[in-house]
């Protein structure tokens, strides 16, 4: 693989995630392909249930067993397909090369172990990597860098505030200097001040050029702080991918338009640019957004729009942009 800023650090091909016993059902992540490049922060945006967390879990092979599985596709990292390697090989890779910062700071920590035990646990899978003293040094310096005192090592998760738990998770994710960090809703429901901290830390992480970030959020405001490129996921499918500037100035997919309109941009009131609906029906064969889309017609309900690559390199999957040749 070529070296340098544009080298891909992770290539995903047609990743499909679904329930184990669900022949014929629509997959929860449907044939998702993308590349994560060195030095970049790539955004994965979508509403709740769009498949963002499942994508993250699939990349780490942490899907809830035995319910969900990777049904097909490849996750290429260096010369390996992470969907195929052995569990032991994967355990060595997790944390050290690819780390996941979880959505829910309240449940991601073990409630009965103190912070020290949980941080040292990270090293235990990678026993050869560092002596006990080295580990302690590393932990203490990272804690300090994140504004936490070493006193916190003796604390149990319930004794910490939400912001502190988030920082402990962050320290944990960075302990082994991973090159790829996946952050799933890392700032969701956090106070603005804590959120600003997390953004600072993520920015600092990216200062090393060989690293890459996959940031997952429903919120364009957060993603815009860091991402150069954003993918939009709806119903488990990639419906749009564009540079941040293109997405902000000219969102093509109606779902992207709805997500942007709902955000309080420049202090304006969020708008509902989608059909509010009560129906519990699962999306059928057609476009995943058809039931809420303001532009949907019969074709949208019956036929899935293909993901097209446009002349300017953007990708979009909507029957309307197909017709207008956008």
């Amino acid at each position: 693989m070529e070296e340098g800023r544009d080298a891909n650090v992770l290539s995903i091909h047609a990743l499909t995630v679904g329930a184990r016993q669900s022949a014929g059902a629509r997959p929860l992540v449907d044939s998702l392909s993308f590349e994560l490049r060195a030095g970049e922060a790539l955004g994965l945006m979508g509403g709740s249930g769009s498949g963002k967390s499942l994508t993250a879990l699939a990349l780490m092979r942490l899907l809830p067993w035995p319910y969900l599985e990777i049904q097909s596709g490849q996750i290429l990292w260096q010369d390996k397909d992470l969907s195929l390697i052995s569990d032991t090989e994967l355990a060595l890779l997790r944390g050290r090369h690819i780390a996941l910062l979880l959505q829910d700071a309240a449940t991601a920590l073990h409630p009965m172990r103190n912070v020290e035990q949980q941080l040292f646990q990270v090293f235990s899978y990678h026993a050869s990597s560092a002596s006990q003293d080295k580990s302690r040094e590393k932990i203490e310096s990272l804690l300090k860098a994140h504004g936490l005192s070493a006193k916190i090592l003796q604390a149990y998760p319930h004794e910490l505030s939400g912001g502190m738990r988030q920082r402990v998770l962050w320290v944990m994710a960075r302990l082994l200097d991973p090159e790829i960090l996946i952050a799933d809703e890392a700032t969701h429901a956090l106070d603005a001040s804590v959120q600003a901290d997390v953004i600072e830390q993520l920015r600092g992480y990216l200062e090393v050029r060989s690293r890459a970030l996959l940031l997952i959020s429903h919120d364009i405001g957060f993603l815009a702080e860091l991402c150069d490129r954003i993918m939009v996921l709806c119903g488990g499918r990639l419906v749009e991918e564009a540079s941040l500037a293109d997405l902000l100035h000219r969102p093509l997919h109606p779902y992207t338009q709805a997500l942007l309109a709902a955000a309080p941009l420049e202090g304006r009131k969020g708008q509902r640019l989608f059909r509010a609906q009560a129906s519990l029906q699962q999306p059928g064969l057609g476009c995943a957004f058809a039931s809420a889309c303001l532009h949907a017609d019969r074709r949208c309900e019956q036929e899935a729009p293909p993901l097209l690559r446009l002349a300017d390199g953007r990708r979009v999957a909507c029957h309307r942009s197909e017709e207008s040749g956008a």
Partner: protein
Amino acid sequence: MTDILEVRGLSYGHSEQRSVFQKAREGFQVRDFHLSLRAGDMHALIGESGAGKSTLARLLAGALKPAEGLILWRGRPLTSYSLRERARGIQLVMQDATEALHARRTVGEQLREVARVTRGLSPSQVRDMIPQRCLELHLDPLLLERFPHELSGGQRQRVNLLRALLCEPELLICDEPLSALDRLHQVELLEILQEWRQRTGGAIVLIAHDVNVVAQWSDAVSLLYQGRCLEQGPSKAVLQRPQHPYTRWLLSAQPRLYRPAWALARSELVSREERPGVVVYPSCPWVKRCALAEPACWGQESRLKRQDVDSSHQSACIRSEDLPWHVGS
């Protein structure tokens, strides 16, 4: 129009200390809170964690007994009403939606019971009405046959809201209804609330930590910090010309796309390190972080003060007249 709710000098707390890993705080969770609410008003209570929002919500609903102060509901002390009268006047929808519903009974059963008991409706009236009310909240009536654990978090929250609305309250208090929702569901819920208050003339107290999302929808806001209200006033005035340094900072700390045009750099508003020292009531609680603080801030009483003769816009900053953005200047 007269006020339906009037709150004077409300305080709640005991001097229990937090765990040693967190900063020691003043024992009061809410201190000296004032509010006037008219029918149909939406008032947003905004603050970061530890601001005392949920405590205040419970106090306003009469679920907690204040240590000091007075809550007047339609001109009479809230405590002078029976529980039943109170439930028909004020409904509280809590942040943690799981505890409000019974786990072993279907959602429909529980909602029907609420409607029967609080509104005195017959079983057949209830049966017809509830599916209709579900649709108003964009809930599929099929959900009524399910148990609470079979619903998503967002659906559970709406069921809780519906349960409160079935009591036809005149005041609805919602504690952080938006923080677990994505942007799409946030606007949807805000529209539902808006529609409800326009249709029924009910008032809403909406609690949030995200100032951007709610302030645009409410008529007035209160900004809370460590149990104290630092700024209060019409949403428009507060958003466009915030007077308290805390409010300025909170709005400036938003992501770039959400920040107002006047946003200031962090360093202009907050000091790098929290200043040591103990803030003694009624000094300004923001003094430990405020970049504009002066020695006088530590000793002087900080209380809400009108900023502008013609408006109800109030700030508790003792220096507010000297600040560059003061409305009067």
